């Protein structure tokens, strides 16, 4: 039996909370104790529940911990004051729960279970004896007689308490009639994600007095949790200045919608967007960002991207402007402006940005950052806290995070990936790392074999050690269980090799026509990802032409459509890999994947492939042209043959280092040099082939090398 799960939100009475938790923490009950949750809308402001227990063994119990004023009352008045408070708490929770069809009885009026309220006091009050009053000593006796909760209420009850209605699928999919269609499958998958898991619950509600790090793979719910957290913090503390920030511009709308829905669910009102701000990290000409806001606050003119790119180069532009602003602010008496800063896609930001946020956030630096450990396969180690936030004058990191029992957690791992079916994630990893490149070759590999366990893989054969043979399988408890209900790997993942580009474009257009006319999928369920970002508009235009011949609309995100809007009704979304980040779709087509199997920067290109594949919530069709695609396809076939487990010989330390230098991103100068070398080698070989030059005329060692290579 599991231990009771305890989630720490806002503590109204920390001493009482500690006492309560110390009694309940050891109970082997199935359920959750929410501290400082849920939030209720009351007549003129919002209020929180001090603590709420929902467990199968004893049903629903509210704990009233706000008793200071009561104890001071005169004898006789105490009982009635306690009863009044209890009645109010019961009324508020009742009014929330009766709105849920699954929680009410046949009459449609009353709940299917009682709401119990216990007023919890540290010591007994003389001459006051109530069945609903408890001290640490009598608490368990008071709870014991409370009847168990009918199991079928558990799931809807938690959804109602957590107010996860906003997680409900946005699409109703009323057109789905055929139970075998792809539309029916995705409808089933979407319906399964209505509750938070225990880790998500902790991450969303727990709010430590200091920084907090949330780690998890793509699809583990980081964005939703940050949105929920923002709504919860805002409801609790309407005056606090809260900022939610991110890198991918298209996340703006997603955040705004989610936060509005979560907030409305809690307090039936719109957020005050002056206090709760959703800001792009940099900002643009038309909208403020975190950097531009802080810069204005520090009395300097923010440098826009268009200017920064001239000074720092476009890849380092953000790092450049943040570094400058940090050193400027350090010279000032700068007054921090934010109470909370919530950072999504933390892996995309330079350390200077975190240092900037640190300077701009009031003590105790309530900075929450959500980090995707696998966004960049080659560089799987997370930057340390001192790398991120810097060190103080004493040489110690300015930010530290610790998980202490009985306290809100500061370091949270979200272990379950809900977005991708497990086999799809495994295939993406296998390709991203290049484990089936053959001849002992890899595109990249995690330096620390243990990292595999961290991201949810277990060793089924061999040894998970450097230089040893190993077979890795996605752990069952690290994937959402519902994918297997409606999908098989063979349906979910397929690859297609074409002789030329036009036949690829034609096949994709035909397939889209097929799935949208016979499989009950909408056009907006489809995302076409183009790994070759430079060729993206050319490829996109060619596919658009094929689609429009079939009367199917499409848009290239950021080109023929707004760059902040991804999905449009009745139109297929296409995007280059950069815009694909952070987005997901039931069905993904990866176009001209051969781009990821040729030329320079193999590790970077394999990262791109990994990102492209992991956009898919159910199906991915990996398409490409020519022999490069053919070899990529054989890699995929090999992984599929291993039953979507990863079977390979782990490279040694030395081999991993070699991979890094061989495939590290080359500078353009290096690239030019290599290209020059290739050209001159080509000339030389051509001369040899044409008989203009004889091997004997070459220096001895070069001739030897050539003879060996030609064998």
């Amino acid at each position, binding site marked *: 039996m599991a231990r009771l799960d305890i989630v720490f939100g806002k503590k109204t009475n920390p001493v009482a909370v500690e006492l309560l938790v110390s009694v309940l923490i050891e109970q082997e009950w199935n359920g959750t104790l929410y501290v400082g949750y849920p939030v209720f809308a009351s007549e003129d402001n919002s209020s929180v529940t001090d603590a709420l227990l929902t467990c199968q063994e004893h049903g629903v119990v509210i704990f009233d911990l706000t008793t200071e004023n009561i104890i001071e009352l005169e004898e006789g008045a105490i009982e009635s004051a306690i009863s009044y408070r209890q009645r109010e708490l019961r009324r508020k929770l009742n009014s929330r729960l009766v709105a849920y069809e699954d929680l009410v009885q046949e009459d449609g009026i009353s709940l299917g279970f009682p709401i119990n309220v216990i007023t919890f006091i540290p010591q007994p009050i003389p001459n006051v004896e109530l069945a609903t009053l408890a001290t640490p000593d009598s608490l368990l006796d008071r709870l014991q007689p409370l009847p168990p909760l009918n199991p079928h209420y558990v799931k809807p009850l938690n959804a109602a308490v957590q107010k996860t209605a906003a997680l409900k699928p946005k699409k109703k999919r009323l057109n789905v009639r055929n139970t075998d269609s792809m539309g029916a499958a995705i409808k089933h998958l979407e319906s399964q994600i209505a509750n938070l898991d225990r880790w998500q619950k902790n991450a969303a509600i727990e709010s430590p007095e200091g920084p907090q790090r949330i780690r998890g793979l793509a699809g583990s719910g980081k964005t939703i949790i940050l949105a929920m957290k923002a709504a919860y913090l805002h409801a609790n503390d309407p005056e606090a200045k809260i900022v939610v920030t991110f890198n991918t511009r298209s996340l703006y709308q997603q955040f705004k919608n989610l936060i509005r829905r979560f907030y409305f669910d809690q307090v039936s009102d719109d957020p005050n967007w002056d206090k709760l701000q959703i800001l792009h990290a940099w900002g643009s000409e038309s909208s403020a960002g975190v950097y531009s806001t802080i810069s204005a606050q520090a009395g300097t003119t923010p440098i826009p991207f268009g200017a920064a790119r001239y000074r720092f180069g*476009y890849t380092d*532009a953000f790092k450049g402007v943040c570094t400058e602003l940090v050193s400027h602010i350090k010279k000032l008496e700068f007054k921090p402006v934010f109470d909370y800063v919530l950072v999504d896609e933390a892996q995309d930001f330079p350390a200077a940005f975190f240092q900037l946020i640190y300077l701009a956030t009031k003590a105790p630096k309530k900075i929450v950052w959500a980090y995707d450990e696998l966004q960049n396969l080659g560089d799987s180690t997370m930057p340390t806290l001192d790398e991120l936030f810097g060190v103080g004058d004493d040489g110690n990191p300015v930010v530290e995070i610790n998980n202490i029992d009985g306290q809100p957690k500061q370091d949270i791992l979200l272990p379950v990936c809900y977005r991708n079916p497990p086999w799809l994630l495994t295939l993406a990893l296998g390709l991203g790392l290049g484990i089936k490149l053959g001849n002992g070759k890899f595109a990249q590999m995690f330096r620390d074999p243990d990292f595999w366990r961290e991201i949810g893989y277990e060793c089924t054969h061999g040894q998970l050690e450097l230089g040893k043979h190993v077979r890795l399988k996605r752990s069952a408890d690290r994937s959402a269980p519902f994918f297997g209900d409606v999908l098989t790997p063979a349906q979910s993942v397929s690859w297609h090799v074409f002789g030329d580009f036009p036949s690829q474009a034609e096949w994709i257009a035909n397939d889209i026509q097929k799935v949208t006319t016979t499989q009950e999928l909408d056009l907006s369920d489809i995302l076409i990802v183009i790994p070759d970002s430079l060729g993206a508009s050319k490829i996109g235009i060619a596919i658009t032409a094929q689609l429009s011949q079939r009367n199917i609309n499409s848009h290239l995100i950021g*080109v023929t459509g707004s760059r902040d809007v991804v999905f449009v009704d009745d139109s297929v979304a296409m995007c280059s890999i950069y815009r694909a980040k952070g987005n997901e779709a039931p069905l993904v087509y990866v176009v001209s994947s051969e781009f990821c199997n040729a030329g320079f920067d193999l590790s970077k290109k394999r990262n791109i492939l990994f990102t492209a594949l992991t956009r898919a919530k159910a199906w991915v069709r990996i398409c490409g042209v020519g022999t490069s695609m053919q070899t990529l396809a054989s890699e995929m076939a090999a992984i599929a043959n291993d039953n979507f487990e990863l079977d390979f010989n782990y490279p040694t330390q030395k081999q991993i280092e070699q991979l890094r230098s061989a495939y590290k991103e080359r500078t353009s100068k290096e690239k030019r040099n290599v290209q020059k070398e290739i050209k001159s080698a080509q000339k030389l070989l051509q001369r040899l082939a044409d008989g203009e030059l004889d091997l004997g005329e070459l220096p001895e060692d070069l001739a030897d090398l050539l003879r060996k290579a030609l064998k």
Partner: protein
Amino acid sequence: MKASITDLRNSIDRVRINLHDAGLLYDWNDCSVVRLSNRRNRITWATSSVRPEVSSFPISNVGEYLAYLEGRHYQFQLNDGSLIQLSYDIDFKKDEIKQSRLVWYPCPVQFSLEELEYAPIKELVLSTPTECIVCRAPIRLDFSPDQAAHNHSSTHIHLGMEEFRLPVHRAMEPSRFIRFIIRTIYPTIWDNFKVFRTAENWAAQDNLNEDDRICGFLGWHLPVAIP
């Protein structure tokens, strides 16, 4: 110059395919046909916004570029951000071109395509330091015999300003205009893609008047295909 709506649509479509194959096309708008008075149809770019009057920008400036960009006033947007506008008025009874306006409008900033992943062109334009703004004159070839007047030839090229009118010899078909643009502005593409060498010949007349011949003009007695 004789051409039907279908001729024009096909020609503009071929231009689109050629620009695409040359890797020069970034975005495009389809053609639309607008009914005018006097038995005329206008073949122009499809956009939902209202086309700015040319007189709103007597001298070309960055604002004009942005107005076209934002309003999607172009048939083609090229990879360097420049815009191409092709617009023809046709007498649909006679299949005769009565007026045309062909524009290459350069982008006032330079960038690599990767940079557009960080910020869209508009933002680059608005945030580029003034000293980095590039000054290139837009080229507009007008054919408007109805408006011909003293010192206003029926066929002329504007270079960056409304009052600058260089008389030219003849009006141009879409592919002939694109050939002119590619050869003069994109020489590498010209060298590498032969498709731009062929142009239609819709029998444009010599439109020069006596004044033009005396004071100077731009002439092109060009063959249909260039080796």
